């Protein structure tokens, strides 16, 4: 029964652990993204103790099946079982940084208890790809996630035609990208948004490939270091402008590039 949380005292949830904070003496407050109930917060008692039998199933970026008990303020994790631990992410600093970045974006974009099964699947698929792909492809996996997530949250950027006048976008001319208009602007409309950023027509083409998301095509994208930095900066700026706040883990991710 997707939607609001069940009224019964115990309920099952398939989740990805996004983050946790210390709570009280030896507990943790978990932020979870669940398949059926969206983002939920729950306390996990005694999980800071090394004797905890559930702590290992509740680390960030773990796909777990939980049994939760309804609490008066916070729900409480009573059982936890790892479905997938994504060990290859855990063993590599760059993959961890990428994983935490998408976990933070999911946390920042979602409200508590608003389910979105497609987003849950996108998160799982992306973690799976982060654990498998060649290091060289990690940045594309992240950008694919960013643009698809934006679409699911109602911010799908318009890339096929000018977001102001709907004209088709010519090749090999300077274009711009506008948060206000939610997409690419042709040269004559660029002045309609003073905050718009420059983007090349090749940059727009790459965004389109990422938006469609077909991995066979995404894998073939070949970019210079400058183009990579530009794309990553553009998407980060788009996301942070919509969120009206900084994505904290972006700084560490960038420092590893």
């Amino acid at each position, binding site marked *: 029964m997707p939607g609001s949380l069940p009224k019964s005292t115990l309920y099952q949830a398939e989740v990805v652990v996004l983050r946790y904070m210390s709570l*009280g003496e030896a507990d943790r407050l978990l932020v979870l993204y669940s398949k059926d109930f969206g983002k939920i917060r729950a306390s996990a008692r005694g*999980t800071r103790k*090394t004797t905890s039998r559930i702590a290992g199933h509740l680390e960030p970026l773990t796909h777990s099946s939980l049994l939760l008990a309804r609490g008066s303020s916070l729900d409480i994790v009573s059982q936890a079982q790892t479905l997938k631990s994504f060990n290859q992410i855990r063993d*590599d600093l760059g993959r961890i940084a990428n994983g*935490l970045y998408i976990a933070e974006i999911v946390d920042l974009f979602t409200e508590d208890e608003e389910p979105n099964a497609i987003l849950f699947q996108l998160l799982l698929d992306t973690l799976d790809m982060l654990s498998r792909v060649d290091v060289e492809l990690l940045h594309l996996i992240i950008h694919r996630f960013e643009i698809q997530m934006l679409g699911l949250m109602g911010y799908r950027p318009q890339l096929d035609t000018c977001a102001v006048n709907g004209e088709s976008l010519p090749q090999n001319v300077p274009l711009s990208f506008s948060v206000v208009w939610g997409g690419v602007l042709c040269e004559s409309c660029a002045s309609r948004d003073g905050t718009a950023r420059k983007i090349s027509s090749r940059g727009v083409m790459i965004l389109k490939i990422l938006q469609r998301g077909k991995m066979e095509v995404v894998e073939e994208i070949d970019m210079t270091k400058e183009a990579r930095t530009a794309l990553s900066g553009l998407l980060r700026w788009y996301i942070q402008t919509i969120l009206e706040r900084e994505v*904290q883990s972006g700084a560490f991710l960038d420092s590893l590039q």
Partner: protein
Amino acid sequence: MTSNFMPAGGSVARLIDAFSRLPGIGPKTAQRLTYHLIRASSEESELLAKSLLEMRDRLQFCSLCHNISESTICPICANTNRDQGLLCVVEEPLDLFVIERASVYQGLYHVLHGVISPMNGVGPEDLKIQELIDRVKDGKISEVLVATNLSLEGDATAMYLHDAIDPLGVRTTRLAGGLPSGGDLEYADEVTLSRALEGRREL
């Protein structure tokens, strides 16, 4: 909320409020502690107040290991009987205390004062990592044992340290054996901790 039950208001409410800001202390415990002090002798309150002020006054950090210390160089760093070639890296002073209590470790320490925590905006530059690298560059250390928590962030910090220290030709190792993932080091019992220190693995 608690002030509703405060006949004395003012100073009593302020003390309850101050206690409830401490980690692990909820409003109920804060009230209980305050009422205990109301009933206890005034010497007990004076001792508590004096200890708090003295602690703040004398608090400083060892210039080598960054542990809490009452002198520029802490007693552990000053102890020449300890293994000068082995350096154990911990997140917090409390972790160092827990390892010392197990009394199996004979080397030196380095306290990072946190862990790389990207989602909380804590990066390597916010920790005592450069200080660690400078210490390793000094040349006496042959092994850096990373004893950060066995959490995702603790592991990430360990890998970051490995990448920074490895080019200097110094071994980096990690706690292992018996410590389950997910728990905080400060809660480990002495037997488990001793085993984890002895059974460390290469990073």
